[in-house]
């Protein structure tokens, strides 16, 4: 079975863990415990193919961000999450994406832009059009989701798997990049 390494990124408190746990375990985590790093595994069927997703739920807290480079290197697909109720979480994503592109050293990285907490329409400060404009600029998929109301949660991960399949078809996945890459350390 093919494995997919997915990394969930975004500022603290936007609902990365809530989305991941909702997808993997089907429950909504009400309590907020800042994540350090958690990994989850879940088997799903996408386009008739069994896939094993290895999802890394990362920290949004500033102090834990020094380790980002490492997991960005290992990740194949990225979920960039902001909360529609906090403008700053939306603004932070630009830097995050640039870091991913820098670490991956390519412009074509499977990615989904996610505006979470869309059940809190009353507290919305980031417009849907802002989100889709940014996604357009990133050239990636855009979804507004709610981990609480189970809106579009599975779609994030299915879309990402399809993107990864498109960019590197399942045939031979044994280090296709080695050789062409030089590392300076």
């Amino acid at each position, binding site marked *: 079975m093919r494995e997919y390494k997915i990394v969930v990124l975004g500022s603290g408190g936007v609902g990365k863990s809530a989305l991941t746990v909702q997808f993997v375990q089907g429950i909504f985590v009400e309590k907020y415990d800042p994540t350090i790093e*958690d990994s989850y595994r879940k088997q799903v069927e996408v386009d008739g193919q069994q896939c094993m997703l290895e999802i890394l739920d990362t920290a949004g807290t500033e102090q834990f961000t020094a380790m980002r480079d490492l997991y960005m290197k290992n990740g194949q697909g990225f979920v960039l999450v902001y909360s529609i109720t906090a403008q700053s979480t939306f603004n932070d994503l630009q830097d995050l994406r640039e870091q991913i592109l820098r670490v991956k050293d390519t412009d074509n990285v499977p990615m989904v832009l996610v505006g979470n907490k869309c059940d809190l329409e009353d507290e919305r400060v980031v417009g849907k059009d802002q989100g889709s404009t940014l996604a357009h600029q990133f050239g990636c998929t855009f979804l507004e989701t709610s981990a609480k109301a189970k809106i579009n949660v599975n779609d994030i991960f299915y879309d990402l798997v399809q993107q990864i399949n498109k960019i590197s078809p399942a045939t031979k996945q044994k280090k296709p990049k080695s050789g062409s890459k030089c590392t300076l350390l």
Partner: protein
Amino acid sequence: MSGAKFELQKEVFEGSKERLHGVVGVTKTSRKKKPSFLCLTGSIERPIRFTIYLVKQTEKGFKRKQEWTLSSLKEANYKAKDSLDFDLLLEKSYHWTATSTEDKDVLFSLIYQITARMHRPPKFINYQPDEEGDSEGASNIPIVAVPKDGQMVDSDEEEFGLTEREEFDLEKVLGRAENAVVNAEAFMEQLAKELSILDGENIHSIMDSETQVNVLMERIDESIVQLEKIESELTDYEDSVVVVQAAVEKIEEENSQMGTASKNQQLLLKELSTLIEALDFSAGSNILNSDLSSKEGIEKAARDANLLKKALDMDEEIHPALQKMHSVVHQRSRLEKIRDKFAKGLTSHLAKLFIHHGNISSVDNVSSINHFRLSPLNLMHNELIVYSDLMIWLKSVEMDCYSSLLQKYTMSTQKVYERNVKALFEEARVRISGNNTPSSRISGSSTDLRIRGKFFGKTRSLANREGDTESQGSGEGSVDSSERQHFYDVLEQLLEGLEPGVNSEEKFITSFFNVDGSSSLNTSSVISPSKSSGSAELRRIMGNLFGSIESELVAFLVHYEKMESSFCMGAMVRLGNHALKSENTSTYIGMIYGSVLVQEKRSFDRLMNSYVQAINDSRLPRKTKPGILPFITEFEDFAVMAESIFGNSARRSDLEKWYVKMLCAMFDAIMRLASDGGKTPGEVIRMENYHRLHANLSQLKVAALDVQKKDAKTKYNEALNGYVTKYFGRPLNKLNEFFEGVQAKVSQGVKESEIGYQMAFSRAELKRVIKEYPAKEVKKGLESLYKKVEKHLSEDESLLQVVWRAMQEEFIVQYKSIESLISRCYPGAKITLEFTIEDILLFFSEIAQSH
């Protein structure tokens, strides 16, 4: 005729707003009677409608007899020139005789002129219209147009006859003389008389005013003379004023020229003085001799340096033309020279200070060991901080000097910190294994470690960090709780001890090297993320100074976790507390702790995963009674330790996630192992282990595990019931079978009271079966059952009493059900079993007590 016309107009036609144009006195040709008047009128209002009236004169006045519109006239027969007769064909033909031929001519001429413009004029017979049109009425008739429908519309704006005003005047005059019209001559005479009287009066008054006119003329002559005099005086004045004016104009011109000149001079002066002020640097080359060793001297130097900078920055404000002035160029190059020289001097002075302090501080690392903390370099900071204004100046003026200073500072200070950090960690190691603490179990060498018992069996290789090849000595649970506590205490002190030194250095760097992005320098780039670039720079400098902390800390933790992998749990909690402190949100040390925390979390996850794996891989102990499975007790130990470490810390949720996973694995493992328990029934394994697990979870009181706790309870009850049902079985089997037969009959439709009449279920048969279970036999059976149960159950959980009681209850239930069936199916037969419920209770307690 005009007299009649006037009267007709006034009496007949004024009321109907018509104007009488022509009238002719007529008599009907056929009869000789009183004459009537045939009148031709036109309406005053437009459009003008012309009408022909036949008016009769009676004693009471005029009376309209008949009327026709003019357009209805079809034919007009003039007959002969000198005849008074004429015919008009209206709705029928009328024959009239006029009173005079003149009147007849006038009427015909009128009708002809008016109808000539009509759409369908009447036919005139025997009539030659007068080309001259000099007849009386013709001049009075306006030109009119007659539209198709016969209505008459004016073709121009001209009014008929008199205006209203004239009419009014005329009426007034006529009103004075009632009979004016009749008696015109007398009237005229009277008017002429009045006129002559008025003329006489007029001449009289003209003659009266002559003297007055003469006086007026004299006055006018006088004033003309006066005016001429004034005029000549005015010319005199004017002549003299013209002379003065020329003088004044000249003065004025001179004045304004002088004003311009003085203004220009003022401007020039101002320009020059700003220029001089701008380029002036009063301290001059004296700045080079500044006293950089005293506080006052430094402050003065900073002030001067800023003035110098200001003088040089003036460039932009000085007019480009002025900048070409020789003296300006000269002054500037002089100032630049001073600046460069001063910067060089300052740089070398500070560089010397850095080296000096680097040497002093590196000698003194004893204090940091004695107090077990990384001492801030306060002495150096205090001495250097006074230079921070000069450093800001230097950064803005001579970036090269600034960078080289930064580099020198980093080099000399980094050595000090590196040494101190190393010493601190050394001290920490000593304290952990040290001689001055009651516990000396964890000394630096792993050979001293004793394995007390591990959690979850052999997990060492799994729990180890990736790439760690030396697995010897690794283990868990190899230390007791006081040793563990000691390790955590030292770690806590270490983390605490590092903070002040690093934080004070960070603060110092921020202000001394001015790298917060808030300096005056960065004002030009407001849009660029100066804050993040500033903090990145700060982070880089801090990284150079304290790079060793992270590697030392990681090495330290790896070292001890190799001996006791569960140390990562406490390390995680402690690091979490420090990294997530609000004052550490964006400090360097907070970032370091954060990164190490992420690494510790990974170790923790690996360790926990190894525990889960161990549970998944666990086997049944090779004993006759497996009893409580090892991982159940290990989990108890683990939970006690974990709770003592995590308590209510922020990282508790990380632990609870693994609790859940472990319990899942444990439930699975109990199920799996229960099904291949060999001699021991699976129910017993399940019953004992779920019972223990439930008790343990109740004691733990972890809210996150409530579901699992309930689950354990349910599973325990299921196992207990299953066991009792299976092994207590039916001690009165034949009786049970007998009554099963009875119930089968009943369900086939046999009445309960008639069961006794069935051959197989007769009273005698029942009595025979009952005889097979005398009290003695029953007790014997129970005793052997007890022995069997005793053999199954382990001492671990001592559930024997519980099971025995459950069996007693089961027995009583069975007894009662048989008893009630007997009373229902064999009523009045007085059949009873050979033993009573009291007997049963007695047997059970006797058996339990005898063992």
